[in-house]
């Protein structure tokens, strides 16, 4: 089964500085899933649970996205531990910003079915975090599941937006037997 949160909403992180663990890495705007998933929507048995991030932008800075289950207070200072609901991280190797002429990084539509050119390098992507333990822990201790994603910027260029580095369309929760 898959759960889909349609409209991402963002609230500013309360973390003003990176933790000692992240050194000089920088926090950015935190994502909190606007919808919760009743645990009754999960099957009784599953061997693996993935959190799929769909439509992820990778045009900007390189960052770590720390994924927490049922920890809406997570920030860049939160220790990524199971007890804090940490499920895992996905990483973005970003383009760093646009170094072409105006329009270079705009994703064009294919002209027609005969247009066999490779698709644009900045097409949004999918990232998958294998989150089995965190999902099972949340399902065992709560009636609902929600996700908080904390971006921590690792590397950037003079053309990178550091305020709102993380953008994606929605999250799927997918289980496998």
């Amino acid at each position, binding site marked *: 089964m898959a759960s889909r949160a349609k409209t991402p909403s963002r609230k500013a992180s309360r973390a003003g500085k990176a933790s000692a663990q992240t*050194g*000089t*890495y*920088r926090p950015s705007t935190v994502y909190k899933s606007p919808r919760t998933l009743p645990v009754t929507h999960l099957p009784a048995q599953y061997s693996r649970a993935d959190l799929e991030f769909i439509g992820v932008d*990778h045009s900007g*800075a*390189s*960052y*770590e996205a720390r994924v927490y289950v049922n920890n809406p207070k997570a920030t860049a200072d939160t220790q990524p531990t199971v007890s804090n609901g940490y499920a895992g*991280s*996905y*990483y*973005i*190797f*970003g*383009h*760093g*910003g*646009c*170094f*072409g*002429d105006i329009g*270079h990084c705009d994703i064009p539509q*294919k002209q027609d*079915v005969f*247009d*066999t050119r*490779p*698709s*644009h*390098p900045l*097409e949004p*992507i*999918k*990232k*998958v975090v*294998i989150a089995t333990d965190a999902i099972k822990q949340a399902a065992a201790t709560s009636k609902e599941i929600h996700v908080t994603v904390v971006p921590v*910027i*690792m*590397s*950037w*260029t*003079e053309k*990178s937006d550091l305020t709102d580095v993380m953008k994606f369309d929605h999250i799927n929760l997918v289980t496998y037997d």
Partner: protein
Amino acid sequence: MASLIVRKNADNLDAAELAALRTGYTKAQAIMDNRGYNYFAGLHGIPNWYCWHHDHTTGSTVNAKLFLPWHRAYLLSFERAIRDQSPAAPKVGLPWWDWSSATSHSTGVPTAFSVAKVGGKANPLFRGHIIAPTATPPINRQTRRFPGNPNQLPTAATVADLLNLSQFNDFSNQLENIHDFIHGWTGGNNGSIGGDMGSLGTAAWDPIFYSHHCMIDRLWYQWQLKHGANNIPAALLPLVLTPFNMKVQDVLSINALGYEYAVSFNTL
């Protein structure tokens, strides 16, 4: 009978091999035409952007996950270009950086790549020089690198878990995630700007790029040994790895491509 090129662990190169590798890099970095380092670095990101990451699906029913095949073809072409400029002996392939090793968890980037000078001369493995006059703004400077804390690097246990994934797409996704981390970790930042490995456009100018990708390619090879060399969606096989004269089906066997991976290699 032709012998295979052996790609060795960067920490296990002997002095003669390291000297030969440095000669190849130094000469290639001085060449500005299509035999040179600047040309090959410019194929990956700025200004040509041929590199393939993640899935490309627009205009196709094929979920084109070419991250591993494309970079295998890229490394092969780059390695040939470096060997063109290297001494005939010793015969040296691109070394791989095992960022999961105990050594890397202590030193981070291999010593061969992290010392600025060797014998009083600039170490060509320490940094490259980006010349990208058509970028906006134009770039003409040496690369920079601000690696993170070595204890953050992936562990051998993480690699073992990775190699246990049995489906190609699953394996490729998770390996690329680790790859993405290494780029951000190696580039890092100095508080005001990031290092070049951390941005796709400039990453291939940093010499450690190729040894990082050798590690990625080696892990794919190890996965192939475990799960089958032809264990890849059939729909990917005829796809072209632009701009190289190869298709996915041409890069599945590293031995057929003329190289192998070894932790160490000695001639008696």
